[in-house]
């Protein structure tokens, strides 16, 4: 598998996700600067977390119009896997790769903590090492993770298995009190129709090593390597 990590001005999880990818892949991913207009031949494109362009105007809005994003979109259309984490989720949503929007957290604050997530669909390249219904623990660190989409689209997404993760408790119960940001249906991450693009607010790369407090996130990178190699 070949992977690329897009670097925008203000990205700050680019190194973290590169480290996690390297641990699963055995080689370093390519780091691609936002002003590049060419994307190398890769199987996976990661749009990392951070504060691209300072999140001024609206989260992800400016990065979504970066030269490189046209290439990312074209590559996604051609079937490459795209993973957007946190700010990356905001960017690829703004760029139209995924339905919906990410609004300010319901309690209007940045929040950094571990959360439990229920895996909603394991039949894709991101989650083949998880089982549907599994509970995993990833950290969140965001102020704008409140996912929203219109009711019609939401129903279609549910029917089509496009909900990737929902916030839950340690036992997998999905309820409003376990929702850290007010997102619709406790949604933490979503797929495109073909399940080739995943955007999620929690950071799998931050708990991909036991020394840091857990390794649930590592399985996502292992899964991608397994599927795309």
């Amino acid at each position, binding site marked *: 598998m070949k992977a690329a990590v897009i670097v925008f*001005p*203000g990205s*700050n*999880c680019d*190194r*973290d996700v590169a*480290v*996690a990818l390297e641990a699963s892949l055995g080689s370093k991913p390519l780091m691609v600067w936002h002003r590049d207009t060419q994307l190398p031949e890769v199987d996976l494109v990661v749009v990392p*977390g*951070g*504060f691209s*362009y*300072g*999140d*001024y105007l609206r989260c992800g809005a400016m990065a979504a119009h970066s030269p490189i994003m046209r290439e990312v979109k074209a590559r996604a259309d051609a079937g490459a896997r795209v993973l957007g984490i946190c700010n990356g989720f905001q960017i690829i949503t703004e760029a139209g790769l995924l339905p919906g929007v990410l609004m300010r957290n319901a*309690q209007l*604050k*940045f*929040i*950094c*903590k571990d*959360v439990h997530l229920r895996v909603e669909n394991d039949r894709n390249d991101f989650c083949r090492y998880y089982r549907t219904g599994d509970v995993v623990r990833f*950290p969140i*660190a965001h102020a704008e993770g409140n996912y929203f989409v219109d009711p019609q689209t939401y129903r279609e997404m549910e029917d089509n298995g496009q909900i990737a993760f929902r916030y839950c*408790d340690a036992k997998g119960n999905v309820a409003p*009190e*376990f929702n850290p940001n007010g997102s619709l249906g406790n949604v933490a991450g979503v797929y495109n129709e073909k399940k080739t693009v995943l955007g999620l607010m929690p*950071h799998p*790369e*931050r708990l991909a090593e036991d*020394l*840091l*407090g857990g390794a649930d996130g590592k399985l996502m990178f292992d899964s991608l390597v397994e599927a795309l190699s």
Partner: protein
Amino acid sequence: MSQITPEIIAQHGIKPDEYKLILEIMGREPNLTELGIFSVMWSEHCSYKSSKKWLKTLPTKAPWVICGPGENAGIIDIGDDQAIVFKMESHNHPSFIEPYQGAATGVGGILRDVFTMGARPIANMNALRFGDPSNPKTRHLVAGVVAGIGGYGNCVGVPTVGGETNFHKSYNGNILVNAMTVGLADKNNIFYSAAAGVGNPVVYFGSKTGRDGIHGATMASAEFDEKSEEKRPTVQVGDPFTEKLLIEACLELMNTDVIVAIQDMGAAGLTSSSFEMASKGGLGVELDLDQVPMREDGMTAYEIMLSESQERMLMILKPGKEAEAKAIMDKWELDFAIIGTLTDTGRMVLKRHGAIVADLPIDPLAQASPEYDRPWVAPSKQPVIPAEQVEAVDPVSALKTLLGCPDLASKRWIYQQYDHMVMGDTVQRPGGDAGVVRIHGTNKAVAITTDCTPRYCQADPHEGGRQAVAEAYRNISATGAVPLAVTDNLNFGNPEKHEIMGQIVEAIKGMGQACRELDFPVVSGNVSLYNETQGTAIQPTPAIGAVGLLDDVTKHMTVAFKAGGNHIVLLGETKGWLGSSLYLREVCGREEGAPPPVALHRERRKGELVRQLIQDGQVLACHDISDGGLLVAVAEMAMPGSIGASIEAPASVPLHAWCFGEDQGRYLLEVGQDDLVAVLEAAQEHDCVARVIGKTGGETISVGGASVSVAELRDINEGWLPAFMGAEMSGH
């Protein structure tokens, strides 16, 4: 006609004697620009004129110290050609006036001090003091400061891994916001600020200069009065996105061979940075202010020189390297301008619109700033309060009161607003004795803590100074790390008052003693004086930021009990010292009494013992005993893993004093059955008092025949701050 009236001189915070010295140095009357430059350079904030005499007495050397005080930050060697660069700095006055921007730019400023030297920032900490929770401004200030620290630190992508927060009425009119940054540098690629090379270009880069922050340093050098909020325009506005670009651009630039010297523009902006660089290099400098990138038209020389606009840097380039440097700044979309050259005149000459607008000698300004030996009186000692004279409240209800009091209540509401995991190396998150951050790509880690107990410093600044250093030493040791060096952030009231000056002198003496005894040199620091409002001073707060090194990160120790059925070992002696304790203040409503003394020689031995036991894998959990005493420490070990403890108190000390006395130099260890004998023997070999005081296990903490569930304690501990802030963030 004289331009400079006594009113103008006074508005600039310059004393009549100081103005006489200015006339002597200049040989003529200064113009307004020149006077403004003198006023910021000689402000307490920039010149340390009241504290310098005493700061010089602090120990600053050790074989592992690469750079002590005097540069942008201190530097220590951590082996493998790597160095740690760190400093703590206050942003107290601006944070009170405009909490969000004041705190945010405090973080930005301390980050720049560190990456200016060639280090990538790897961790932030902060030590905060707010007024009484019942004060109507406190909630607003907490919300603003925390949001500001988070807003800045989160965006630049540096984890905030710990800190401390206290509340006390003495901070009602003067909160303290002390921010610390720790960075990692290549030992062979460190950058300093001394200019060199006559004719070399002086380059400005970063953000544009605006009218914000003019006279911030002067504001930070005066007492507050009821009109202080009118000073809001002197608070700067931060742009963390630009700071992030600046970090990346600087580090990229530093990997090329173009820089002679570099300095950030902090307090007193272009004035202070250009003077310091020229002065350290023994050179002169000529600046064409027309070349300075400006945000608005029509700025005067005075405004350009005194602006404290953020995210700006000044550097001296090697000749012919301008294009190479500019290409990197262009990549990061940062302003870049050659604004002058180095000269051999020893003078600073400023031009605006083609005319010379200031011409000042550099050394007298930068180095011969006034230094005062301010008169002081030693604070009177408070009596020792015997435990028998302190009301005995039953341990369970006292424990509940203490765990829910503002100083001990969980600070989760605060640190959950800080990204403490970005950069992927945070091994110990906030909430323990110290933050532990792995050195990227290695098996080493640094432990970082900030400590000070202001109520001890109020009762006895000398003992309080010693204790702040000793507690930092303990917190580092409790993680298994070897304590290496400290940075100090000295926050006091008005030094022109003899009793306040006495606090400063005694605290510094105490700190110096402890640092010497513990081989714990001071490598950087900052002084914030005039923390007074309408004559009321803050409690003396000499905050200590400390760094230690773990050679093997996998052996780092945490405070949480790991399992039931293990022994709880108390290291150190317990006499039940209640003077100036939290128990006395929170349970009995008394703020008095001599604080617990620190025995420095034993402190060192105990630290070595604890580190050895951790290294040898004989300890399962470790926590130093500090605020609130032994039973509070037990609860803090019980709550994270929901594992209770049964504690047996000795009959020799009154129960309330044994549970809540704040005797110094103590640790609690969780030890398995198989290691107990070895641990007790090792303690004996180190001449340390150690005894088993109970066992882990169950869902309650029991002592003296009473018990309370760990879950209830956690609810109390987690409940106070969210309830106070009216927020709904939960602890799941």
